[in-house]
């Protein structure tokens, strides 16, 4: 179902009620996708708690916070000016790391410190901020008032929180999760909202790519560090001695948990981390440096190869050993040994050494994982390129690896999204057994959106973003005329999505040359997504302004791009969305090919099925952006002849697919435009939006339903008295389940309760209204 149907607040209210009802307060970890979504979820939670207070619930001491990066939270007058998260992290570390603080406090003024961070020491641990729910902006405001650092306030308060809201990566990406989420209790309830793309997040968090410039930079870093070691040897050789001793005792002790080091942690999952002493041959700093130098040199040599290489980690390690005598075991420790060294040397500006960290992470990952991973060396970026620009991909093929620890650790995991379809794909690729799977229908009091499949231009030339025809002038022109006609027909905002940046950039130039954009300009302003996030944000803001003041605007952006995830084009911001072509992944990509092969061999998912599934979930994401709530309306245009095929459409979420009638699934542009005109005229008529009794239930409606459910349950109970245990209890019967016709569009909702949950708990989750 589209956004704005109340998914987030339903989940939150249910879980918070449960949490507050039972004395063994379980924590809620709520993961969302983008910062705006996190902020909105926090606002929902805040309002929910206000409502609970109004209704007389006693939520004394309830705490809810959201976490994001330093860059989004920093208040330091200079550091906060930095645009790049990496740089902010590094500069913040220089001002707040343990050794800097030690020095600065012992001898004020010798080392610059951050006053916001220092101020935190005046607060009692576990009570850095008064109880309550704070949005990210609230915390920043609070920090500003009190002069405390919002980031560390949140970080240090995490163990005391009842609800934590942050992005997927903080739980899935080992580089971050180890630091941030390690202390989360096993009892926590984990929710992944907007999880339709979760497998890609998993894969990304365990993959790493190296390029030639990166290796060069890493080599420079190594030289710098070795200079530093020489220097320390002269001045403070004791330090290195101490480190050596510590390393002998074991790495874990050496790396006792320190919050300021979260930018340089092990890239592997915690269960794969080694709990043993660092091998002797890299214990000494200079030995480790030499080790790194050798490794980098080896990688550089590999990159000189001018043909594509794909190999397993095992064969890579074998070759590595043959050439450089680097063994698997020390390589496993590379990342952590580097962390230890950086700390010992008290290096500042560690963002300079970013590439080196990546190389070390690469080494550790390669040495740790064998199955489900592949190394691919691509000397040329594209097939036609002549100048080599090699990239060494270490790619994870199995998304279940990254999410497995989450399933293992937490007893309740909920995966949910508005466009998670088909449902059975996710358990397969993420390798878990769902306890319960539910998809909920959506009730609409009127046909609020009109999906149309345009397969031909007005001149009857079929249109498609298929690689062979996408640059055909007839196709480009027909795509353009769809845009022109839509700009003419539709009021306010129109959003268009392209399958890739490459295609968008080339088609925009082509349209300009054909005079199509001039035509669009006659009706609406034109904004285009750019590579720079900030620039795009500004364009989006102007776009919205143009929609608000009646000028109207067109936004061109890319499916899977920045805009398609997380920006809503609701109401007048998007009266029509056009999907130019099907957003397939780049099928020539070797990584994708490897992944498809993996899926076929391990999960028996056919290549085509997966590709279509992947393309359709992104298409659904894009077109779903135009609707928010049930009073909103919009047009959805699928412009590609391949959308006419049922196998493609079947993979769209049902709430969209069921509205694509056969008559609207094979249109030419002119017919589609006249349909659109008719639809717009119709939908603009005054309409009574009262939803009471339909999708908005009063307390009486709910009680009536509960009574009926109870009756049904009792009857079933009697009938099944001895037959079964508790299976029937695991059915969810929340208030959204049956309030529409059976054939209404179901939205997908999945629950996964791993481990054992006792019956009472489960029942309580089912019946929140018992309270």
């Amino acid at each position, binding site marked *: 179902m589209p956004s704005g149907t*109340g998914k987030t607040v339903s989940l939150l209210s249910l879980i918070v009620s449960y949490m507050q009802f039972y004395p063994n307060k379980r924590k809620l970890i709520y993961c969302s996708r983008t*910062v*705006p979504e996190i*902020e*909105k979820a926090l*606002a*929902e939670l805040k309002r929910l708690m206000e409502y609970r207070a109004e209704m007389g619930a006693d939520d004394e001491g309830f705490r809810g916070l959201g976490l*994001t*990066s330093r*860059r989004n939270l920093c208040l330091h007058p200079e550091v906060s000016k930095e*645009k790049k*998260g990496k740089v*902010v992290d590094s500069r913040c570390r220089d001002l707040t790391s343990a050794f800097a603080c030690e020095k600065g406090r012992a001898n004020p003024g010798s080392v610059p410190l951050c006053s916001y961070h220092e101020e935190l020491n005046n607060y009692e641990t576990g009570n850095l901020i008064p109880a309550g729910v704070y949005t990210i902006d609230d915390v920043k405001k609070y920090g500003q008032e009190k002069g405390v650092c919002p980031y560390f306030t949140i970080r240090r308060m995490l163990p005391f929180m009842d609800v934590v809201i942050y*992005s997927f990566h903080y739980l899935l*990406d080992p580089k971050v999760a180890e630091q941030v989420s390690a202390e989360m209790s096993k009892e926590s309830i984990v929710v992944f909202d907007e999880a339709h793309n979760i497998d890609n997040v998993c894969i*990304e968090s365990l*993959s*790493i*790519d190296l390029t030639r410039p990166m290796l060069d930079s890493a080599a420079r870093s190594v030289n710098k560090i070795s200079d530093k070691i020489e220097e320390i040897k002269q001045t403070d050789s004791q330090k290195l001695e101490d480190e050596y001793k510590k390393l002998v005792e074991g790495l874990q002790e050496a790396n006792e948990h320190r919050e300021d080091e979260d930018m340089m942690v092990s890239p592997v999952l915690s269960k794969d981390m080694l709990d043993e002493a660092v091998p002797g041959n890299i214990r000494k700093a200079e030995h480790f440096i030499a080790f790194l130098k050798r490794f980098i040199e080896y990688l550089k040599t590999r990159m000189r190869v001018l043909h594509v290489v794909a190999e397993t980690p095992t064969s890579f390690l074998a070759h590595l050993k043959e050439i450089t005598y680097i063994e698997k075991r020390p390589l496993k420790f590379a990342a952590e040994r580097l962390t230890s060294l950086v700390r010992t040397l008290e290096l500042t500006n560690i963002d300079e050494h970013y590439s080196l960290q*990546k190389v070390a992470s690469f080494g550790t990952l390669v040495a740790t994982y064998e199955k489900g991973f592949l190394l691919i060396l691509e000397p040329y970026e594209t097939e036609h390129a002549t100048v080599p620009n090699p*990239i060494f991909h270490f790619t994870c093929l199995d998304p279940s690896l990254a999410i497995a620890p989450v399933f293992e650790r937490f007893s309740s995991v909920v995966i949910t999204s508005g466009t998670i379809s088909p449902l059975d794909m996710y358990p397969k690729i993420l390798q878990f057994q769902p306890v319960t799977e539910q998809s909920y229908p959506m009730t609409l009091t009127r046909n609020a959106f009109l999906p149309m499949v345009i397969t031909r231009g007005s001149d009857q030339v079929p249109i498609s973003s298929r690689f062979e025809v996408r640059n055909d002038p007839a196709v480009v022109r027909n795509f353009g005329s769809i845009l022109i006609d839509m700009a003419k027909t539709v009021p306010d905002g129109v959003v268009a999505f392209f399958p890739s*940046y*490459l*295609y968008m*950039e080339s088609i*925009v*130039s082509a349209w*300009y*040359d*054909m*005079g199509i954009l001039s035509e669009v*300009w006659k009706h609406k*302003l034109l904004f*285009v*997504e*750019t*590579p*720079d*996030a*900030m*620039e*795009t*944000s*500004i*364009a*989006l803001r*102007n776009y919205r*302004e143009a929609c608000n003041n009646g*000028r109207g*605007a067109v936004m061109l952006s890319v499916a899977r*791009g*920045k805009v398609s*995830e997380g920006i809503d084009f609701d109401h007048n911001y998007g009266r029509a969305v056009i999907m130019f072509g099907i957003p397939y992944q*780049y099928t020539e*990509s070797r990584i*994708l090919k490897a992944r498809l092969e993996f899926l076929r061999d391990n999960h028996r998912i056919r290549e085509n099925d997966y590709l279509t599934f992947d393309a359709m979930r992104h298409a659904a994401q894009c077109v779903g952006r135009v609707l928010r*709530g049930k*009073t909103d309306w919009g047009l959805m245009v699928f412009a590609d002849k391949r959308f006419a095929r049922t196998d493609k459409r079947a993979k769209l979420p049902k709430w969209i697919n069921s509205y694509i009638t056969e008559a609207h699934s094979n249109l030419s542009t002119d017919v589609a435009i006249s349909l659109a005109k008719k639809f717009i005229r119709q939908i603009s008529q005054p309409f009574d939006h009262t*939803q009471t009794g339909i999708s*908005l239930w009063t307390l009486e409606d709910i009680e009536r339903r509960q009574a009926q459910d109870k009756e049904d349950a009792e009857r079933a109970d009697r009938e099944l008295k001895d037959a079964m245990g508790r299976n029937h209890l695991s059915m969810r019967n929340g208030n959204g389940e049956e309030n529409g016709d059976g054939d209404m569009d179901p939205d997908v909702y999945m629950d996964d309760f791993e481990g054992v949950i006792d019956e009472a708990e489960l029942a309580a989750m089912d019946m929140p209204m018992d309270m």
Partner: protein
Amino acid sequence: MASAGEGSDIRRFDVDFKKVPGTLTVTGTHIAWVPKQKEAMDRQNQAMNRAINMLASKAGSKSVSLKILFKDDIPSGGLLLVFSNPSTRENDRKAVQDILIPFVAANKNPPTGGTSSGPATPSATVPAAAVPSTNAAAAVMSANAKGKRKAEGSSPSATPGVSTPNLPPAVRAGREKQYKLRQKVLKKNPTLRMLHRELVLGKQITEEEFWDGREALIQAEEMAYAQKPGRASRLLDDRFDLDAGRKGKSTGGTGVGIKTAENGPVILKLSKELTREIFEEFPVVQDAYARYVPGISETEFWSRYFTSQLWERHRASVRKSAVDESSRKKDDIFDQYLEEPDWNIQPRQAQPDDVERYLDLAATEEDHGESITVRDVTMQAGRERSALPLIRRFNDHSKKLLRALLGSVSDPFFFPIRRRGIDLYNEIDLEDLHGPAKETTITLDVQNAADMADKQGNEGPTGVLPGRSEEELRSIASESTSKLSTFTPDFSSVCLPNPGTTQIDADGNPEPHPAHKAFAVQRDAQAAALLVVKDLHTRANAETAVNAPIPDEIFEQMRSCHNAATEFLRQYWSAILPSQPGALNSSASAKESKAVKMAGYLKNTNAKVEAIVQSGMIMGFDPERIRKSMAPTIAAVDVALAREAKRTTQAA
């Protein structure tokens, strides 16, 4: 004198024109002659501010005449008016002359910046066209603003209200503007125009009175008039399509302002508007202009610009110029403004970072360490380097258009003041999940409301059959339905057979049938019933029957009568009702006189309607229908008249 616009200074004189006796009417603004004979066609109506000369016949000559000449010699030869009233003709002429003197005086020496000169004829200095040395494009600057809106309503005729030439120009301009607006309103509104013609030009009420109370119309017109076309939304360089001629292929430009002579140099016509747009679009050009133009001529500046590499960069982004880089010639002014195209991932221009959080894509991008994987080729934004400057220009251009819309083009960094941070609750609020709002009723402040309510309750039984309970009603209903459903007409019981008038009695003689009488009674009753039903039927049909349309002439008369009556009513009520503070003509006496006058007009309404009825009857049209359709008008007039009678008796 005429400035107050009151009807009182309409003056009438007996005047012959072209030997036809008639009446000369002189108002504050116009001079009109209407023949006395109905069938005479010739009428004259001229604005006095067009009079440029007067020639009077010698005193003591046989006829007392006055010749008035008008501007542009329209009507040709002027008007020769012969004053015919034997007793007052000398004085009449004098009076007319007195009224006309100021106009004639004003028109003989037209004041500078006067009212009547129409659009300033372009007296532009067109610099010698084209610099011959350039082959591609030579720019011709024409100094006059081509895009400037032409003064509208340029006809110099009739400017009522401007009767006193020694009014301050501001007032005069205001009047003129108002007049134009009024003309526009009338033009748009045929009914109003007709009314205006009838009432104002027919001298029943004055111009001012007519417009009094119609300010909203004027205002709306003024607003519409004040709207200016905004900036053209196409990209600037897209509109000069220099390539069109050169390469012989269309690239979508429209070629605004381009003239290509046969095989000659391309001539660009630059209006002020266009230069302003160029400056806006490319601030560097403005910079160069400011720095160099006094030094080199404007024409040279522009022709050099349009042949420079800078222009090439500006217009097509880099995609084309890269090819013929070497063939371009150097230009010492513009080449120093050349810079790398803005094609890096990071935009050159610093971005403000005050985006609302829910649009902040960077926040998400930097939310969790940088992605350490490389996206595949097709998904790397900004790979097509040449497209980036173009995309940036699109965004920039759209932004500028948007700002221009908001009227703040001058400041590119202008952003409307917005709330810092967002109203998050508003963001998450879903209107469709609100419960149905209670209707907000306004409680009337009624005295003894409780009593009223009580009374209402005691007003007596309501419903279909008062006093019956619901059960009773229901039983009645069911009874009736059951009766009806089983009802079968028993005609034989009511309809006697015709026994024949006579019967043969026992002795064979006819004698009246004894049953015949009963039959006759019954037959007559049947006939009567049939008549009644038939009548009912026809009447019911007549009610819904479509009437024959009213003949056009009658309809026209009715309409004009109605319109006039409504206007009078409007005027009357506006005179009677307490005037709004600040309204014109609010003095009590003026209102009083207006009210009386309007009442006088209104009194005629009945007669007018009768006249229409008469003419309708002559044409053979149902007079009742005319009366009926005019009834609401008459009723409204009657209300006003009754009110007026009451008022006057009260006053007396």
